[in-house]
């Protein structure tokens, strides 16, 4: 199979409310910067375009159709869309390149979550007979997961606070972060609980924004003369939708995906994990077997800003940034979907 490389990544600032900005206005500036970085004029210069979005975030059917208006798709382009995080759009694009139908692809994800009540909106992705009608919000489900871990002595509240503290501190060097600052674990623990056992700081914020990535075959990346990182492995797995039948203190699907993506074939210098809640970062770190040698969420992760439908793609982009800057030789990016880490995608990136 052809080696595939990432050559560009851009993200908008994570903001709690993007205000008077529609989908196309959210996407265009990010694509502009992405094209500039990849030295492309428009989406006409890549062989395939794929995006990720969710209609229910802003409450309008066909949100992705507006996205096409940002692409300059005249003459027509090869284009597709997943109603998932754009990391899966990247996955679809990789298959397209592997089968020889493209040498390059633009991938973007976007979400304007601020118009709705996101935790309640997400309750409607649960079992439509047993759970959705109860309006069990996504934060409450995560809180139950955290308590299982606390009760079983797998984590302490301090462990969770340390995750938050590191996220906020790391985010200070991320210009797009929504929440950043010199926050100590003690500061976090001093907060009252929000959805016990979670504190507000244990939960990612709601953010509006978009991100984009350009990938290409290594030959193409060389031809373009751009710095790149190689995608050496990618795999994703989903688990049963019955929360009661999963071991919520572990992420079996993340572990399986990492094995299939070849994560353990070398040292992992950096990991960007899509953990919307602090305790989930610990679950993921353990499922992936990451230790001291790995810098976890140097961007601050999604606790510093969660661009629904783009955050997973951004994790991949953040690892790319560390590798091309020379800070890391090899890294892993993780993406999740569904309640309590039901569906997980793992991407392994390496220095060229």
């Amino acid at each position, binding site marked *: 199979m052809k080696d595939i490389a990432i050559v560009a990544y851009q993200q908008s600032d994570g903001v709690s409310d993007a205000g008077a900005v529609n989908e196309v206005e959210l996407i265009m500036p990010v694509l502009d910067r992405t094209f500039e970085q990849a030295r492309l004029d428009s989406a006409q210069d890549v062989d395939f375009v794929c995006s990720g979005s969710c209609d229910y975030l802003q409450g309008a*059917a066909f949100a992705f159709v507006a996205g096409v208006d940002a*692409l300059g798709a005249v003459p*027509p382009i090869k284009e597709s869309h997943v109603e998932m995080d754009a990391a899966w759009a990247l996955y679809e694009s990789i298959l397209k390149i*592997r089968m020889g*139908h493209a040498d390059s692809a633009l991938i973007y994800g976007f979400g304007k979550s601020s118009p709705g009540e996101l935790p309640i909106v997400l309750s409607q992705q*649960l079992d439509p007979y047993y759970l959705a009608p109860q309006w069990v919000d996504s934060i409450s489900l995560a809180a139950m997961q955290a308590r299982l871990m606390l009760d079983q002595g797998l984590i302490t509240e301090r462990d969770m606070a340390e995750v938050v503290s590191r996220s906020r501190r790391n985010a200070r060097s991320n210009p797009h972060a929504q929440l950043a600052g010199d926050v100590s674990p003690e500061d976090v623990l001093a907060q009252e609980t929000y959805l016990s056992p979670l504190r507000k700081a244990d939960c990612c914020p709601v953010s509006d924004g978009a991100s984009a990535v350009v990938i290409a075959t290594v030959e193409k990346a060389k031809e373009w003369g751009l710095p790149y990182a190689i995608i050496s492995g990618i795999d994703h797995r989903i688990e049963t939708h019955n929360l009661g039948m999963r071991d919520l203190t572990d992420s079996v699907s993340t572990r399986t995906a990492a094995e299939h993506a070849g994560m353990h074939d070398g040292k992992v210098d950096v990991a960007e994990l899509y953990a919307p809640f602090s305790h989930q970062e610990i679950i993921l770190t353990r499922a992936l077997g990451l230790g001291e040698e790995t810098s976890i969420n140097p961007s601050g992760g999604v606790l510093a800003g969660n661009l629904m439908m783009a955050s997973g793609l951004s994790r991949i982009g953040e690892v790319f940034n560390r590798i091309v800057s020379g800070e890391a030789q090899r890294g892993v990016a993780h993406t999740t979907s569904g309640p309590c880490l039901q*569906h997980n995608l793992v991407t392994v990136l390496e220095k060229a």
Partner: protein
Amino acid sequence: MANLAAVVGVGQTKYTTKRQDVSIAGLVREAAVNALQDADLGWDDIDAVILGKAPDMFEGVIMPEVYLTDALGCNGKPMIRVHTAGSVGGSTAIVAASHVQSGTFRRVLTVSFEKQSESNAMWALSNPQPFSTHLNAGAGGYFAPIIREYIRRSNAPKDVGIKVAVKDRLHGARNPLAHLQKPDITMQEVEESFMLWDPIRFLEACPSSDGACAMVIANEELADKAAKQPAWIRGVAMRSEPTTFAGRDEVNPQAGRDCAADVYKQAGITDPRKDLDCAEVYVPFSWYEPMWLENLGFAPIGEGWKLTMEGATSLDEGGDIPWNCSGGVLSSNAIGASGMIRFAEAARQVRGDAGDHQVEGAKLALGHAYGGGAQFFAMWVVGSEKP
């Protein structure tokens, strides 16, 4: 070059207004089980599942792959959800094929569905946003002016749409799975049916159906050993263009022309009317048959309606290039599945497995889907012979 891949199993539900006997999972499952049985395979033989459907608002279940994991035997496997509006069934089949054509997987299951009776398609498609005009009278209201412009350009006689409406329902009467069963339909009945969006009459429009369609796609090694004749994938293509832009040809969209040219090139087709034995083309409003006959290169510009009127696209009239032998979207329209039904029915034809709507000796067939404002296109060509 892409690895070879073939359809080795096809499964569908019966299409009907309301499937009140099953849950959403039960509906999807039924098509998937039928496809596995057709392929003589079990759940363990499947490496990944690729799911497609139109907007989540139809059923009010957000990202339904999350809930459908267990119904599709996906626990521990990769699962992906495609959404490209009305073309989604076709796009989903293409994404599924790419799982195999890329060499990444050996055998995958793909499923598309819509359980439209859970809500109301008109509501889900026309739900107005603040500050926007509320004149969107469903898909028909959108496409009717484009059809009117086609009629003006082509000078087609008024009864072309009526003829297609009759022809596809007569085809549908041969297909026990088709939603509308109208073996006695007449031109007069269509002409006298209620005008909805002039020039589209009630019987010139598709029904609203519940249903699901599934396929098993395997690599060359497994397809060679398949239980039944495989349908080899000879070409796949997708194209998109914006909904509107200055100078856009809405009647004959370039995205459709480009997509067809791409898929024909891959399949070695130079004259689609001659080289293909039949086609399953997304025709939700009857007038789209002559429009797509031109867009897809089966007829010169302005002359698509002549093929229709000559009976070239009719199985019953012994036409040389039968279109929509299954009855097409005009006979069954479970929106998210409709594109995949076209792809699957093309596969059934070249597998020689299309029952009473079989085109005798069909070797090469086109599957076509379109969506949005006729701006998203997905097509594949399947053949009985390995390329």
